[in-house]
């Protein structure tokens, strides 16, 4: 892959099959109309995707490096900012590299190289979203499948603690429910859609069946479903606010479908019970495979959050929260995960890329971020860049730079470069590689 910025494209062109690097659906059928290097028309994308494409060539982008001096930012030469970033990382005794969900696997690969070189920690957003799912699949396994299999085969689609119409707008129309598949020629008419949630969400409103559970009782409901599927007597009359009759019907539906899939969101993975909720869902699917074909998939949020687990997995053996401080990879969520590290005040320098922890972490963690030297690589200003000491511009993967991202079902998708970057850098990978080289030089 070339690390050089290409020539500017001036003519009006239509580009097809562009990847949308916003949510975990990673739609790769987007059509863009580009004129004078600006995106003027977006087709096929949902509102979230469209907004990102239009914003990418809009005016609010970060184009240059910034360095904080006496409390305010000044524009800096790129070289100076890269030097400063490298110095910060080399000087730290417990540096943390965090984010990665909205950048390429290639960029992350350089990030891992940096973490190993400086004896730092590297963690990603799954640490604060689907880490319970990962812990569960490590301890329980995962009967998974691809979204292609869902589209072609599934006749029972269950969303548990997820509201894809809001979070992954094209999930139902492109993959799970509405599309015509090889064995589901009539699309929606050939499938049953079930939503289990604590409230009647947009998705619940269009479902064939909605089951409302009391908040924080998913574990109990799943436990009873597992017992019903295995025909074990259950004494309780209601569980988690759901009647035994409803649960029996659902269990029967699951057993008698020909290909079922359970998509779960953070409503399951982040509510009370966390990884054990997910583990119960996985075990339920495993039990169902004695009767039919059944799969479970997490609704991964960002475009490449699944990829970060993949790349960290094959490079270090662990999917997130990896600590290189002793030269080898050590993994212990609860100790080496971002919130715990920051809240305990262990981290003494941090680099953030492809995420906005300044907006999403608990207050105590953000307070620590404000205290320590912070480097942010981003495409526009965010609460994180506002806390940073060094801000480096990035390039949008799948639009301004090419790279690999993993869709939520762990299918890698190569996304292309379509326009030239709005900022002065060719790609996130390039920025990180420059930092890496400087670190090598500083460490001799």
């Amino acid at each position: 892959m070339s690390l050089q910025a290409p020539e500017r494209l001036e003519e009006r062109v239509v580009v097809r099959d562009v990847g949308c690097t916003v949510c975990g659906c990673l739609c790769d059928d987007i059509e863009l109309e580009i004129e004078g290097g600006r995106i003027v028309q977006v087709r096929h994308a949902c509102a979230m995707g469209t907004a990102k494409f239009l914003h990418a060539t809009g005016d609010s982008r970060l184009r240059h490096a910034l360095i904080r001096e006496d409390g305010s930012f000044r524009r800096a030469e790129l070289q100076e900012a890269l030097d400063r970033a490298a110095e910060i990382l080399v000087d730290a005794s417990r540096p943390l590299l965090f984010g990665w969900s909205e950048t390429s696997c290639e960029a992350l690969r350089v990030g891992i190289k940096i973490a190993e070189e400086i004896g730092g920690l590297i963690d990603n957003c799954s640490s604060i979203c689907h880490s319970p799912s990962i812990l569960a699949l490590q301890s329980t396994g995962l009967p998974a499948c691809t979204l292609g299999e869902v589209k072609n085969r599934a006749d029972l689609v269950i969303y548990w603690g997820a509201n894809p119409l809001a979070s992954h707008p094209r999930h139902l129309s492109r993959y799970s429910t509405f599309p015509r598949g090889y064995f589901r020629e009539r699309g929606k008419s050939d499938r049953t859609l079930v939503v289990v949630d604590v409230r009647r969400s947009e998705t619940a409103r269009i479902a064939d069946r909605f089951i409302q559970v009391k908040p924080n009782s998913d574990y109990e409901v799943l436990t009873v479903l597992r017992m019903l599927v295995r025909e074990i007597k259950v004494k309780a009359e209601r569980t988690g606010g759901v009647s035994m009759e409803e649960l029996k019907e659902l269990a029967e539906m699951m057993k008698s479908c020909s290909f079922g899939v359970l998509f779960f969101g953070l409503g399951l993975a982040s509510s009370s019970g966390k990884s054990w909720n997910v583990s119960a869902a996985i075990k339920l699917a495993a039990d169902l495979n004695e009767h039919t074909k059944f799969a479970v998939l997490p609704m991964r949020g960002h475009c490449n959050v699944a990829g970060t687990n993949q790349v960290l997995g094959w490079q270090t053996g662990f999917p997130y929260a990896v600590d290189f401080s002793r030269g080898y990879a050590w993994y212990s969520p609860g100790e080496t995960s971002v919130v715990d590290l920051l809240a305990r005040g262990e981290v003494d320098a941090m680099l953030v890329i492809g995420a906005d922890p300044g907006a999403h972490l608990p207050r105590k963690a953000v307070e620590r971020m404000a205290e320590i030297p912070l480097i942010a690589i981003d495409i526009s200003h965010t609460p994180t860049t506002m806390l940073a000491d060094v801000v480096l511009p990035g390039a949008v993967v799948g639009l301004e730079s090419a790279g690999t991202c993993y869709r939520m079902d762990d299918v890698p998708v190569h996304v292309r470069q379509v326009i030239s970057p709005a900022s002065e850098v060719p790609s996130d990978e390039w920025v990180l590689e420059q930092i890496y080289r400087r670190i090598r030089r500083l460490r001799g």
Partner: protein
Amino acid sequence: MLEPVSQPECGLVAEVVSCDVFAGRSRKEIEELEVYAGNRRRKLGDFFSVSGSAADSPEETRIVIAGSVERTKWIGRGMSAGEIVVEGSTGMYTGAWMKGGRIVVKGSVDSFAGMMMDGGELVVQGDAGDYLGCAYRGEWRGMRGGSIVVHGNAGSEAGHCLSGGRVTVKGRAESFAGVRMHSGLLVLGSAERRVGAQMTGGSIVVLAETELLPSFELIERVTSPEIEGVRFEGVFEVYAGDLAERNAKGRVYVKVE
């Protein structure tokens, strides 16, 4: 005797604080032992002032830490004999992989205390964090032997994947105590909900009323039973579970009188 002088903010990794390592070493050699403050290699003597002398064998060695060391992790890792007394609190992984000997912490311990313990004794006079006596991440067999006693409260998932030995929490244990436990004995003063979730064997004794999962079935009422070799006074309801698991042979004893 180790007197804490300073504790680095980024945490101190000091598995060398163990009778096995100290035994037969001079004071000077103990000061030179390698510890990690983040990614920096340092000496034990940089953070503790060392006095007294170590015995020749781990059995006869006694280490006293005269103060709180909340940021020091891995104290007593893999220790096989001897005694460590901490006059304050300790950081994560206290007594992890311990095989023998005794660790007494007069304050509290952070998460992962007694992780993968095989033998020996860990006594905590204060509270314990999460994952007391747990399995290492990804491992499904946890602590296999030895005994942990916490006089205060414990965080969530105490006795996670317990596969032998005995864990006692005199105060309250947060949710999922004894989760996925296979054998051994877990005694809890009181417990938040979901005790014994996914357990397949072993016994849990809860000395107060608790909310059990729907996959536990009341089988009998017993008076002053002997459980895993220990006698408990009072009347107990005995539940079998976790029936959502295959071949589950676990028992939860809930004290009712």
